[in-house]
């Protein structure tokens, strides 16, 4: 079962988990805390700077890191679909009528639409920013054990947020497995999602509702099982999280400095 059965362009948690558990590269063995803090710093950097050179350099560095770690680059490219759509549908509209040297211009119903060089640059910049964030997130996910994530969640989030988080993960698996098996059942009897909706539309509303109720009942049963082992509203993951090593501290310091430099520079570049 996997989300991949449903759509090529949605990250597949099974595949992500598999890579996360594999732990055969140097990055996988690095402390999850290092990667976590690095994620925050990177998000700050791309928020602060719009310098295309810096952004491209960062993006390249992350891509290389992914490649060196042996992550499935093609899959990652396929998973860009949604973020790209999100950026384009918003900024793709904003980009028109930006000031700058016109590249393309036409009129619809009295409105003049002009695409300028700065407009194109804007789209590119925001797209790269989004991709930096996406790629590093996936990199983080695919090089960290789930046990470490859950231990971090137990420590970062206050109760009951951590409980919701940890349980949601298990339920997500159960729900996706159920969705996948139902898709299988439909297919094994000749139903295609699109075709069957046409032939037996009313049925599918029921199917959808039923999946919902069934996964709810499954969640109830899991809760029963927890109660029968004394659940009282708290459960924590107890895996020890590896501590950062010296080199990792070094990396974090450098990145931290870079963020501070950017903060200091940015007001001059007309930013924050």
């Amino acid at each position, binding site marked *: 079962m996997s989300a991949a059965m449903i*759509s090529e362009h*949605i990250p597949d948690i099974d595949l992500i988990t598999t890579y996360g558990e594999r732990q055969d590269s140097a990055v996988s063995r690095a402390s999850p805390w290092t990667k976590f803090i690095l994620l925050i710093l990177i998000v700050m950097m791309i928020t602060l700077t719009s310098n295309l050179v810096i952004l491209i350099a960062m993006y390249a560095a992350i891509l290389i890191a992914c490649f060196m770690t042996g992550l499935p680059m093609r899959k990652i490219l396929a998973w860009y679909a949604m973020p790209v759509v999100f950026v384009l549908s*918003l900024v793709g509209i904003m980009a*028109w009528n930006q000031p700058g040297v016109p590249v393309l211009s036409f009129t619809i119903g009295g409105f003049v639409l002009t695409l300028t060089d700065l407009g194109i640059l804007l789209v590119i910049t925001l797209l790269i920013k989004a991709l930096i*964030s996406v790629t590093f997130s996936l990199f983080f996910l695919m090089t960290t054990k789930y046990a470490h994530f859950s231990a971090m969640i137990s420590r970062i989030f206050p109760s009951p947020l951590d409980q919701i*988080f940890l349980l949601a993960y298990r339920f997500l698996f159960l729900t996706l497995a159920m969705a996948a098996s139902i898709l299988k059942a439909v297919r094994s009897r000749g139903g295609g999602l699109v075709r069957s909706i046409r032939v037996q539309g009313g049925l599918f509303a029921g199917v*959808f509702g039923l999946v919902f109720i069934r996964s709810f009942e499954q*969640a109830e049963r899991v809760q029963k099982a927890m109660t029968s082992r004394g659940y009282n509203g708290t459960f924590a993951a107890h895996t020890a999280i590896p501590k950062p090593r010296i080199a990792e501290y070094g990396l974090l310091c450098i990145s931290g400095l870079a963020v501070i430099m950017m903060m200091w520079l940015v007001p001059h570049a007309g930013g924050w």
Partner: protein
Amino acid sequence: MAHIHLEDGSFTLVWVLIWWIIALACIGAALWFLRSPGRNNQKLITIAAFITAAAFAVFQINIPLFGGVHLNLTPLIGILAGPVLGTLVVLVINILSAAIGHGGWGLVGANVLVNLSEVIVAYIIFRGIRRLIPDLFSRAGIATFAGLFCGNLMMVAIILISGIQGVTQSSSQILAGLTLIMAVNMGVAVIEALITGLVVRYIGKIRPDILGENHP
């Protein structure tokens, strides 16, 4: 797209922080509510976790219409979980989404506020017009549509207030662009309202207790 998730790099640091702080305030309030004594926490947590998982899973289903529509079902979260739990659910969903690139980390704050408005409006309307419209299908449909409409307004407002980094147009120009997006979004909202209506009606038929009118 029924939803646009704002991606990292769209807002400046100041606005990133401002929206995060407002969102955290809402979350703090929700936590405070939940922890106040006399609430059956375990059951609520299970429900919240289940809804989180279901909404996240549903989001992964690509409906083959208009070249691909994704549903978020945030209004359904409101209807089933109410605003207090809904706040937490929406936060967790946005964090999970950010992890796979559907929305930026810095923008989780803003995205939470957008979804939260959907949750709250859908909840209020669903509960509010119970006397007026007892039929679950219409009631849930209307609540969903209204919720999504407010969510859209919220998104437009947040973008107008913070501005997109590097966009140097006047507010009215931005508004024109946003209106276009909104129009598309509301088209999808109709579909989402229909689906939510069907689901709620079905739940009402088989497990009316899930719709229990007494959550916080």
